[in-house]
């Protein structure tokens, strides 16, 4: 119970931060990237504030032997900068630039009751699911080739 409630609380703080910062507003996000138009630099303050707090907080949290409600820290183990990382990130930017929605901004925007957010999130989940299936199919084919 405490495990679920603690995650719910972290989610509430995340959603409040996204909403207050302006990240749930696609027009504001697009204004940040529109340096050739009427530029709104607010997003740099969002990223800066988040980064400073996270860097300091992680410094202390990751010195502990384990998290409060799990046995280990689940940190990404991949180290190499591979083509999938760069190509995927470039593709993500195209979608972010078209819509002004990134995943972390769109999920809290659902709580604003906006149909645009619902349409985007539904489609984004379809994209993630399709990509997982494609990667799985590729992995199966590679395995059978090797065999």
């Amino acid at each position: 119970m405490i495990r679920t409630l603690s995650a719910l609380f972290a989610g509430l703080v995340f959603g409040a931060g996204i909403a207050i910062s302006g990240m749930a507003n696609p027009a504001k996000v697009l204004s940040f990237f529109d340096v050739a138009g009427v530029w709104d630099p607010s997003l740099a303050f969002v990223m800066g504030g988040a980064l400073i707090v996270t860097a300091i907080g992680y410094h202390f949290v990751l010195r502990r032997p384990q998290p409060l409600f799990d046995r280990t820290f689940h940190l990404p183990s991949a180290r190499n900068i591979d083509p999938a990382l760069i190509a995927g990130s470039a593709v993500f930017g195209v979608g972010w630039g078209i819509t002004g929605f990134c995943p972390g901004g769109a999920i809290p925007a659902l709580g604003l009751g906006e149909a645009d957010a619902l349409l985007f999130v539904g489609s984004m989940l379809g994209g993630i699911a399709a990509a997982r299936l494609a990667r799985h199919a590729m992995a199966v084919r590679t395995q059978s080739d090797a065999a």
Partner: protein
Amino acid sequence: MTEFTPVASLFGGALIGVAAVLLMAFHGRIAGMTGILSGLLPPFSDDWTWRAAFIAGAIAAPALIIAIAGEPVIPFESAVPAPWLVIGGLIVGIGVYFGSGCTSGHGVCGLARVSPRSIAATLTFMASTALTVFIVRHLLGGF
């Protein structure tokens, strides 16, 4: 065109950071929306409860803020036509899956860990987004 909001944006950003630190302290997890959502889609992982709880909190927070304030205090504007929201959503979903993360996972948590992969990913998607906005708005005359 939107108003420059340095104080609200810095404060909201700091809250995003607090949430990332809390999720690491409680569950040892990166507060990346891509990773959290991926684990909620089939095939379901056995640790879906904390993921669902985090997402539920993230959706509930703006609704709670509006309910407490008693008026729509969270600005939302979108001029993007519905078909482009669907196409953009698909593109974002595919991109963040293969790119192993998005603004929250790479741009906040990964940069805070000084992860070379996250630095490369963040530079790539920020540049790609800016280029896309330039093409859509200034070359194609779009939204």
